[in-house]
């Protein structure tokens, strides 16, 4: 699943991947953005390391309301993604906006979440579109 409004505002899959896989060394993110990404990783994996000193660093770039906004957003996601993982369900829309069955969605997106630029996803999506084009009457 991807945010349609983020996409419309120019967020690309490349930038998403860069933000997940390479934010520490990347030139594409500001220090403030990198700190937000660090906050997120820590909350997921090592929340005990988010202490007064970390909040002081965060406070150099973000106001109190912004820190609360990030903290609550990240906390919500930390709680929900693990729960959703256990339910083993998939988006109903393909990356190109078609409504598909859970079986088809699993075939497109794969058994584990990866970048939409991943060769496997690109191939599966192309095959899925061919199947649509091959349907009788099209």
């Amino acid at each position: 699943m991807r945010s349609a409004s983020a996409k419309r505002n120019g967020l690309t899959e490349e930038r998403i991947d860069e933000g997940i896989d390479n934010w520490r060394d990347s030139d594409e993110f500001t220090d403030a953005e990198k700190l937000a990404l660090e906050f997120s990783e820590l909350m997921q994996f090592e929340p005990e390391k988010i202490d007064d000193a970390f909040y002081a660093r965060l406070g150099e770039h973000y106001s109190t309301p912004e820190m609360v906004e990030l903290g609550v957003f990240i906390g919500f996601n930390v709680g929900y993604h693990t729960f959703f993982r256990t339910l083993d369900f998939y988006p109903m829309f393909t990356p190109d906006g078609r409504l598909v069955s859970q079986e088809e969605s699993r075939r497109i997106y794969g058994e584990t979440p990866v970048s939409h630029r991943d060769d496997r996803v690109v191939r599966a999506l192309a095959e899925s579109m061919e199947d649509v084009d091959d349907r009788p009457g099209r």
Partner: protein
Amino acid sequence: MLEIDDLLESELAGFVKKCLRHRAPDPAFHAIQGHNPALSKALYIAWGTVFNTGAIDHELKEIIRVQLSRAALCNY
């Protein structure tokens, strides 16, 4: 998981119609939680608030959201 047709007959119909019209957000959120319409509605409002409102750049939140979903092995 509920079917789209079931959702369109439920209290969540308004949300789901919007999902289908705009192709976003993905309606699987309602399909998986729609057994409890009141809770699903409250969760959707909470999610919409923390994801779509506030001062933090939405694109940054989207990167964080995808980061956390991959870390948790969430396919949705």
